[in-house]
């Protein structure tokens, strides 16, 4: 064994001295795939590290207690103070900011009222620079206010201007350039505006039942056990309905988002590596082919097959190592470069560094891919007989490795799949990806077989170019399958990404607005209802006005089992994480689709009942007759499920997870929410009329909210597309490699054809027929695969409504054909230029 290895090593070293030749394609393919995966892994880790390292600053304390829609009781404050905790209270709500001059322009803002202790960690940066407390303090009888730059731009404000929030007047003191806890408590529907807690009362915005969130940040003395403090706090105030986060989980939603995006990008990167794997197989085959005489010679000289195999494997290993190393270096460098462009998208500045985890995983992916795809051609090289030296080049025996090789290859493939699933956050999705990828490979192989069979059976064309082109597809040893797969995988990925993106875009920009209202008005008080209705009715261009009571409730128990002990399906877990919309109604709201149970009688006054979201009920594993305990403004209320409803969230109508029977909840302090349909021209006057008359009411302009969502989706789409492009690049590389591998044969054929009287145009036409048919076939299969993949992702992962987008597909197929023909032409043009004489001479 040691002799075998020693000899193999010697041979490998000597052969590698001559350069890597045909293996350049292997290096390039591995480098591309590994780079994509390493880059995605490094960037997402850097972002997560950034989040982790800054956890206290991001959260704004060691812990945050979300009390919900009422302030924290005094006893709890005292309890915290007794244990040395410093408390900072932050109140968040939405409001209209109105300019107290000129045309009285206004916009919806996310208002944050902070106390003197804010922020407990980090600092708010203002422009012009000044301490936050000074900026928010009362000066000349007016409290101060700072706002994000966009507010100043949109409303054409300057520091010193006067603005109104509800009933309160404020002096704008400056720009809020950096808000330390922006990531953990983001401003979603409008830009951030900050005032002091003392000045909030004068605005009159906080009314019974208003959508006001109270959050309390706690800074513990240096060295305190945050976990223990949290447990003690939870134990002491068990019934508070609070949600407590520690700095270690400052932004779980953001981390989830980063992880999901990273998973998507990693899978796209894996597709690139998969395509690269085909390039590896191809490159190794070509390389083995070029070493045929060497191998035969070695065998003639007495080298055992094991030595030949080991020598080949060692060379491949060295070459794979080069490719992987290049890939890792690129994967490490890329995020640095990309960070500049991504600055606006990333939630926190990434903490760059060499993270061995993601790099190791990327390297392992590269190595396993190389091994999986190279084993077969290597085993074939091992089987090259010594007699190959003396046999005619065209008369080649089929070399078939044994069962052991088949088993080993299957094992390698299984390891690769295992690794994909093991490192993925969402295992089922990753497993589905692997199954899909395998099915796609099989589909392209079948497609290639069908194409070859069809080309062989096609009626003989009178046009030699067509006949030659088709013959090239089905002739013995034609790389039709290889070219189809290499090109098709990349295109399938791109088609899938394009279709997913198209579907998202379509849902946001096309489907929604048709039925979507122009405004959501929130925080309408009971005594303002009549006035609101009158104003809306008086405005020209205002259509349907829907108004319902609105409460916020947190689901705290199901059938008596506390929420934190519930086992629910992952897709329903979101419903337990925060507050859900709750309303009450005597009769089913318009458009209600009851799928189980029945609605209560209009005059029902018995035990509190609820109509629940059918999808969530499925996820919770409950149905009609079960109970839900919800916490409403600090009070637990148990509701029995009377019916289940199908809710179409995308309708952007008045959708409530929970609709309760009237009675009990009518007594709870609450406000009303209204949707108003209006023509575009009527929007501005309506907004002005409502918010002038009812200063505490806030308006959410649906168009603007949709635009914000659309912007975010575009950014995600861009990330997907660019990663998808790597797959296509990889595919193009493999295709070019396949063409390069067959170049000698093509040049020879072209020369013989020219010798027999073929013009260059005829030879070129034959190539165009060959690559054109190949491109159209690859495009057609890619269209099918891309459609299926996008359907699966949109339907099962995004839970959206999938639509067929023929335009996108047609563009994909067309681009595919053109690209194949271009690459094919570029790769074979050299064959047309070849001078015949040198090739036709015998030795």
């Amino acid at each position, binding site marked *: 064994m040691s002799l075998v290895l020693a000899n193999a090593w010697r041979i490998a070293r000597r052969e590698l001295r001559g350069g890597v030749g045909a293996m350049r394609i292997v290096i390039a393919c591995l480098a591309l795939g590994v780079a994509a995966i390493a880059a995605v892994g490094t960037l997402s880790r850097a972002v997560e590290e950034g989040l982790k390292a800054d956890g206290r600053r991001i959260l704004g304390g060691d812990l945050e207690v979300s009390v919900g829609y009422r302030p924290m009781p005094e006893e709890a404050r005292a309890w915290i103070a007794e244990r040395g905790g410093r408390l900072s209270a932050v109140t968040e709500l939405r409001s209209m900011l109105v300019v107290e001059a000129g045309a009285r322009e206004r916009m919806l803002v996310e208002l944050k009222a902070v106390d003197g202790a804010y922020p407990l960690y980090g600092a708010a940066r203002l422009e012009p620079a000044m301490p936050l407390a000074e900026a928010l303090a009362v000066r000349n009888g007016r409290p101060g206010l700072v706002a994000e730059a966009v507010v100043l731009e949109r409303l054409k404000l300057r520091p010193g201007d006067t603005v109104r929030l509800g009933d309160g007047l404020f002096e704008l003191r400056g720009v809020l350039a950096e808000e330390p806890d922006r990531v953990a408590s983001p401003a979603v529907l409008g830009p951030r505006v900050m005032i002091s807690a003392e000045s909030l009362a004068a605005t009159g915005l906080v009314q019974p039942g208003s959508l006001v969130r109270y959050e309390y940040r706690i800074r513990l003395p240096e060295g305190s056990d945050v976990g223990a403090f949290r447990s003690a706090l939870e134990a002491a105030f068990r019934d508070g309905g609070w949600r407590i986060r520690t700095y270690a989980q400052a932004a779980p939603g953001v981390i989830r988002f980063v992880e999901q995006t990273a998973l998507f990008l990693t899978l796209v990167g894996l597709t690139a590596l998969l395509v690269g794997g085909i390039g590896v197989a191809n490159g190794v085959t070509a390389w083995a082919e070029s070493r045929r005489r060497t191998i035969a010679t070695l065998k003639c000289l007495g080298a055992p097959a094991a030595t030949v195999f080991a020598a080949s494997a060692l060379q491949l290993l060295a070459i794979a190592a080069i490719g992987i190393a290049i890939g890792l270096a690129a994967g490490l460098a890329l995020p640095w470069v990309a960070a500049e462009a991504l600055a606006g998208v990333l939630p926190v500045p990434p903490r760059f560094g060499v993270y061995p985890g993601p790099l190791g995983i990327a390297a392992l992916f590269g190595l396993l891919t190389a091994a999986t795809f190279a084993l077969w051609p290597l085993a074939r090289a091992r089987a090259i007989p010594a007699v190959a030296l003396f046999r005619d080049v065209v008369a080649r025996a089929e070399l078939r490795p044994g069962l052991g090789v088949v088993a080993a290859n299957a094992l390698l493939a299984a390891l690769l799949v295992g690794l994909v699933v093991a490192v993925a956050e969402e295992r089922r999705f990753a497993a589905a990806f692997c199954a899909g990828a395998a099915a796609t490979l099989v589909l392209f192989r079948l497609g290639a077989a069908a194409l070859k069979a069809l080309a062989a059976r096609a009626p003989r064309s009178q046009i*030699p170019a067509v006949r030659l082109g088709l013959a090239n597809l089905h002739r013995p040893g034609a790389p039709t399958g290889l070219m189809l797969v290499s090109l098709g995988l990349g295109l399938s990925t791109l088609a899938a990404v394009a279709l997913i993106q198209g579907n998202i875009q379509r849902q946001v920009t096309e489907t929604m607005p048709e039925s979507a209202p122009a405004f959501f008005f929130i925080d309408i008080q009971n005594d303002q209802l009549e006035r609101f209705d009158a104003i809306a009715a008086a405005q020209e261009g205002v259509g349907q006005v829907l108004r319902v009571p609105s409460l916020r409730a947190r689901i705290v128990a199901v059938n008596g089992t506390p929420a934190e002990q519930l086992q629910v399906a992952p897709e329903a877990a979101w419903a337990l994480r925060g507050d859900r919309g709750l309303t009450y109604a005597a009769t089913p709201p318009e458009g209600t689709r009851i799928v189980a149970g029945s609605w209560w009688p209009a005059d029902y006054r018995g035990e509190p009942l609820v109509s629940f979201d059918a999808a969530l009920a499925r996820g919770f594993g409950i149905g009609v007759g079960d109970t839900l305990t919800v916490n409403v403004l600090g009070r637990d209320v148990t509701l029995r499920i009377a019916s289940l409803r199908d809710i179409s969230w995308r309708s952007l109508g008045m959708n409530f997870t929970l609709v309760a029977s009237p009675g009990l909840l009518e007594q709870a302090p609450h406000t009303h929410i209204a949707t108003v349909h209006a023509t575009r021209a009527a929007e501005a006057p309506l907004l002005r009329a409502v918010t002038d008359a009812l200063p505490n009411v806030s308006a959410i302009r649906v168009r603007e909210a949709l635009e914000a969502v659309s912007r975010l989706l575009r950014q995600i789409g861009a990330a997907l597309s660019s990663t998808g492009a790597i797959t296509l690049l990889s595919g193009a590389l493999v295709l070019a490699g396949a063409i390069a591998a067959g170049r000698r044969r093509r040049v020879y054929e072209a020369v013989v054809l020219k010798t027999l009287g073929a*013009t260059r145009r005829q030879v070129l036409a034959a190539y165009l027929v060959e690559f054109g048919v190949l491109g159209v076939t690859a495009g057609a299969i890619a269209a099918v695969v891309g459609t299926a993949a996008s359907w699966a992702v949109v339907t099962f992962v995004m839970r959206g409504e999938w639509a067929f987008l023929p335009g996108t597909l047609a563009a994909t197929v067309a681009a595919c054909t053109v690209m194949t023909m271009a690459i094919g032409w570029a790769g074979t043009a050299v064959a047309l230029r070849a001078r015949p004489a040198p090739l036709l001479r015998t030795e």
Partner: protein
Amino acid sequence: MDAMVSGLPLAASAERAEESLIAVRDLSFTVASAAGQINILKGVSFSVAAGEAVAVVGPSGSGKSTLMMLLGGLDRASGGSIRVAGQELTALDEDALARFRRDHVGIVFQSFHLVPTMTAEENVALPLEFAGVGDALPRAREALARVGLAHRTRHYPAQLSGGEQQRTALARAIVARPAIILADEPTGNLDGATGAAVMDLLFGLRAELGTTLILVTHDERLAARCGRIIAIADGRIESDRALS
């Protein structure tokens, strides 16, 4: 042997160029190599009348194969002129040369040079197809039958023996009824008996079709079957003799 030589003066051969099928004047061919320029042909002149059979003989590296490549328009001369069937080859571009071959020349190589991915009949049909002939395949099969391969039409080159491959190449060379057959060591890759059978076939077809034959060989006995032998040495014509 010297007694059989009838050296023709260059002037005489130039005179004959007017009515000859092939007229070569002052032909030279040079290639650049790392060691400097190599002159492979150094001012070769001769002409061949229609229907003649000419053997070109000479030692390895003498330039005889290069001469044949130039006659077939497969390489470009460095100087001089080659007139074949009324066309000045040195003035034609690549595609025109291809058409010239298609219409006037059949070539048989030592290494057969069949397209490995096409069957015997497809290989033979190629020159006709390039010329846009409608019944290319039936005529290809006819040609294959002529060389005794009627039963091998659907076989790929790799499935044929060396002799069969060369016979296929022969069928391909004659299928379009060219005025000239250029044969470069056609028996070089074949054993004696097979080679002899292929040559019998070649000469038989030539006689039957009245084709002009240029045969490059270093087999004296083969050369002797031609009516005329041009001997080349070191890029020059050493002798040009008609056999009685």
